[in-house]
């Protein structure tokens, strides 16, 4: 049941990415290019997603628990620390170089485009490297388990 629900959520998520235009790296770069011919679409995507999700969350948190699990598994970390900011900034640089973040990269895997394959292999390698970094982890950062 949980697998079915997750698969369905992924399916709708992927459809949303295509409809919104976020699967097109050129369009994402158009949003990030404030000094060029700016394409504000991504702000509307965020607005639509946030509006629906925030409304749903307000309802769900009153409900207290999910349908198919014991509890809502929310991130424990709350500190705004160096790994959070440095990691997010590095992510932003990579995002700005190509115009792909993880969701749209995976959503593009069936296009048969070699550039997407190369990006996703590098994405996996980067994730793998971060999980194997030798320095101590702050609370809440996913590590090898």
């Amino acid at each position, binding site marked *: 049941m949980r697998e079915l629900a*997750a698969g369905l959520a992924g399916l709708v998520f*992927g459809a949303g990415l295509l409809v919104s235009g976020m699967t097109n790296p050129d369009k994402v770069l158009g949003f990030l290019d404030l000094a060029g011919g700016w394409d504000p*679409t991504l702000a509307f995507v965020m607005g639509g997603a946030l509006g629906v999700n925030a409304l749903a969350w307000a309802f769900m948190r009153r409900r207290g628990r*999910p349908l198919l699990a014991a509890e809502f598994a929310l991130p424990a970390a709350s500190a705004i620390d160096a790994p959070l900011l440095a*990691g997010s900034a590095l992510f932003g640089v990579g995002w*700005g170089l190509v115009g792909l973040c993880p*969701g749209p990269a995976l959503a593009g895997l069936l296009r048969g485009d070699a550039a997407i394959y190369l990006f*996703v292999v590098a994405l996996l390698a980067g994730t793998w490297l971060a999980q194997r970094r030798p320095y101590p982890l702050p609370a809440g950062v996913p590590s090898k388990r």
Partner: protein
Amino acid sequence: MIAESFTPWLGLAGGALIGLAAAGLMLANGRVAGVSGILGRSLAPTRGELAWRLAFLAGLPLGATLAKALFGDLNGFAITGRAPLLVAGGLLVGFGTSLGNGCTSGHGVCGLARGSKRSLAATLAFMAAGFATVFVARHVLGGG
């Protein structure tokens, strides 16, 4: 100057679908629909938590392909063909989202919807870095 490619209604509609999917995963499974987190934890799986993650990840390309078949390739597709850029971009996105514990979906869509200050800080950081990177690439170096 606003680009001609601006598509506010498709953006809102697609965004609403993304929000619906994130809300659905939280309501059903109690899990955050953060793509980088789900991907990263699939590489280092915990018992009993791998199957739903793989199902979610498989849904992304299937959903995009289905939507493309139903509605057409609404917004087109164009990506750089420069391999060094793709490799550097992928490495940075993978490493950064893992270190920063989230990406556009986990921090931007899910964290912000719960009012997380941590996610707000992360979102501001990756947005600022993205704007700066594109500015340098397109208007300083003139590559693009």
